[in-house]
């Protein structure tokens, strides 16, 4: 009884998750995520040159650069860009993936620019637009580092943003603050206003604090923006892969045809070889596909061309376990066991080899995931998910169906 409930619940869940969103009782974006090789786009890997910075500031500088790239990419209107940092040995890398982008060269030149941070003063009593501020010769180069601090403010524990200027910058800053007490001093990043705190007093030691009712997140965000200008690091492309969108569409069509053909062949193969049992295994395979698709959307796993190959491969694996089991049953029957006992023994005897053989494939899937990126990882993930789901469908679902038929 218990297995019926589990199976029916799982199937129901899988069906619901696969429904188009307007028929689903809840909303969550469950559209299939297509990898770059299917959607077309560009994959870029940048090397960040952090050699001019002390070790302690490097991670902050790379993070600031990443956020800055993200902001610029968003201005291009790319949907769901992926911008990641990675550390290889002592090198920092930035991985940028832009799906569906048409003007790749524009994106590359936009990403490659270093951030321009600038302090600007105003003569207007109540400035209303960026045009009211004018440059005063204090830039990101004069700022050494921005940090979040929790004990510098008036209220204990309230986060503030501390600025540390270079000695050159400290002189300029002392000069500027002495002239503009009570006035706002604006900070611009790439010509966009970031913040405009009011100067409270003359600051001559090059250490300023921006207080305000920051939440810790807001303070952190501001620090990252300031550091993009304070710790500018040159980046250059060390890997670029452009994938044309037409190639992707073609690939999807062909893969779908291949999957359909593979499926039909497997269905026929099982029915021809194992009759009713084969048909039940085919039903289990339908359940397998439903669960697999639901999981891919739910986790979510980005579907790549190699990932689809992994899926098609896993269809074969799903019935492979059934074949082992059915052959065992045939053998038990040959030795004169009654049908019901043969069914149970078939599953029981085949289980160890099904388990052991799938475990070896899981080990390699794990290593492939570790080794690869992008499309390769897609393959490892679909293979691993496929193996786990197929264990459930080819054992639990098929056995329940067989018991249902042969129990009487």
């Amino acid at each position: 009884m218990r297995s019926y409930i589990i199976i029916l619940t799982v199937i129901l869940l899988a069906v619901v998750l696969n429904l188009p969103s307007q028929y689903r009782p809840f909303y969550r974006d469950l559209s299939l995520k297509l990898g770059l090789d299917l959607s077309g786009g560009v994959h870029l890997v940048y090397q960040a040159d952090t050699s001019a910075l002390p070790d302690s500031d490097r991670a902050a500088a790379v993070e600031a650069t990443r956020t800055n790239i993200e902001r610029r990419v968003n201005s291009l209107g790319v949907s769901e860009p992926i911008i990641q940092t990675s550390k290889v040995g002592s090198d920092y890398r930035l991985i940028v993936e832009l799906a569906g982008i048409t003007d790749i060269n524009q994106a590359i030149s936009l990403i490659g620019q270093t951030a321009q941070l600038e302090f600007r003063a105003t003569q207007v009593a109540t400035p209303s637009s960026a045009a009211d501020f004018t440059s005063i010769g204090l830039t990101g180069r004069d700022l050494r580092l921005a940090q979040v601090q929790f004990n510098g403010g008036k209220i204990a524990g309230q986060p503030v943003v501390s600025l540390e200027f270079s000695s050159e910058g400290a002189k300029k800053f002392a000069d500027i603050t002495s002239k503009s007490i009570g006035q706002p001093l604006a900070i611009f990043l790439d010509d966009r206003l970031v913040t405009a705190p009011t100067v409270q007093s003359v600051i001559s030691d090059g250490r300023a604090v921006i207080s305000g009712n920051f939440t810790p997140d807001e303070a952190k965000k501001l620090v990252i923006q300031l550091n993009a200008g304070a710790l500018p690091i040159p980046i250059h492309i060390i890997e670029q892969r452009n994938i044309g969108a037409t190639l992707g569409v073609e690939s999807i069509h062909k893969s779908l045809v291949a999957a359909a053909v593979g499926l039909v062949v497997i269905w026929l193969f099982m029915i021809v070889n194992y009759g009713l049992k084969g048909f039940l295994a085919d039903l289990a395979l339908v359940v397998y596909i439903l669960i697999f698709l639901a999981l891919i959307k739910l986790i979510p796993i980005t579907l790549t061309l190699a990932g689809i190959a992994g899926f098609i491969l896993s269809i074969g694996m799903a019935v492979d376990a059934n074949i082992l089991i059915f052959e065992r049953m045939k053998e038990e029957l040959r030795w004169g066991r009654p049908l019901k006992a043969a069914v149970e023994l078939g599953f029981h005897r085949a289980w160890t080899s099904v388990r052991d053989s799938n475990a070896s494939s899981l080990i390699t899937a794990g290593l492939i995931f570790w080794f690869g990126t992008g499309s390769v990882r897609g393959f490892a993930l679909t293979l691993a998910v496929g193996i786990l789901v197929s264990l459930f469908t080819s054992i639990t679902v098929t056995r329940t169906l067989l018991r249902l038929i042969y129990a009487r």
Partner: protein
Amino acid sequence: MHVNFIKYKWLYFGISLLVLIPGVFSLIKYGLRLSIDFTGGTLLEISNIQSPISNIQDLAKKQDLELSSIQPSQDNTYLLRFKQLDKDQNEKFKSALGKDVVEKRFESVGPVVGAEMAKKALLAVILASLAIILYIAWSFRQIPRPYSPWKFGISAVVALLHDALVVLGLFSLFGHFYQVEIDALFVTALLTVIGFSVHDTIVVFDRVRENLPKMYNKPFPEIVDFSLILTLTALLLFGGETIRWFVVALLVGIVSGTYSSIFNAAPLLVLWESRKK
């Protein structure tokens, strides 16, 4: 499937050698043709080129580009490989080729990234082999006496090496004759094949283990991996161009895995086990 695999064992071993020897020879003589994933470099696929190959070569020379090879793929489409090409050089080169050319693919990998990838790939293959050998040792640990887990394990490893060498050897030949390259996807296929090789051997040995005392002429019923071979063939015939060689590597490896489990590992084991008596 009724296989008298002891009577014809030398035939089965012979067939394996027939496939292995040319491959291993090619591996030693020609090696593997590594793609830019591992060597670094630039791959440019352009279509709609009206000028002949010699013109393309001249143009590359004139612009001081290190063009290492030109390979025609479909009609009017060429795969060009450069030592390294940045985006400005690429634009200049394409516009010189004519305004109608269409860039289908542009891939550029720095030498450092390539070298890292190569190192990682090698490490992955070594780790996978070690992990699998450990796994074999673990899964055969409880074989009842008088059978030796070592014999089971070593036979499985021999089958694994067989499968890896078949795939590597064949792709060395493909590389030499059809310019097929070893890329990250190939390494993925190789790792998958290593996993499946053991998968098959475990299934077959499970039967051998039960039948050892009486198995000399027993029919061998399992159709190991036949369903996988079916689906992969569908993928090969109907799937896209881009992953064709990936699928070929998987298919060759899995066919070899099935073959080596039934026709090499099992007879080897039976031969070995029976010798001591």
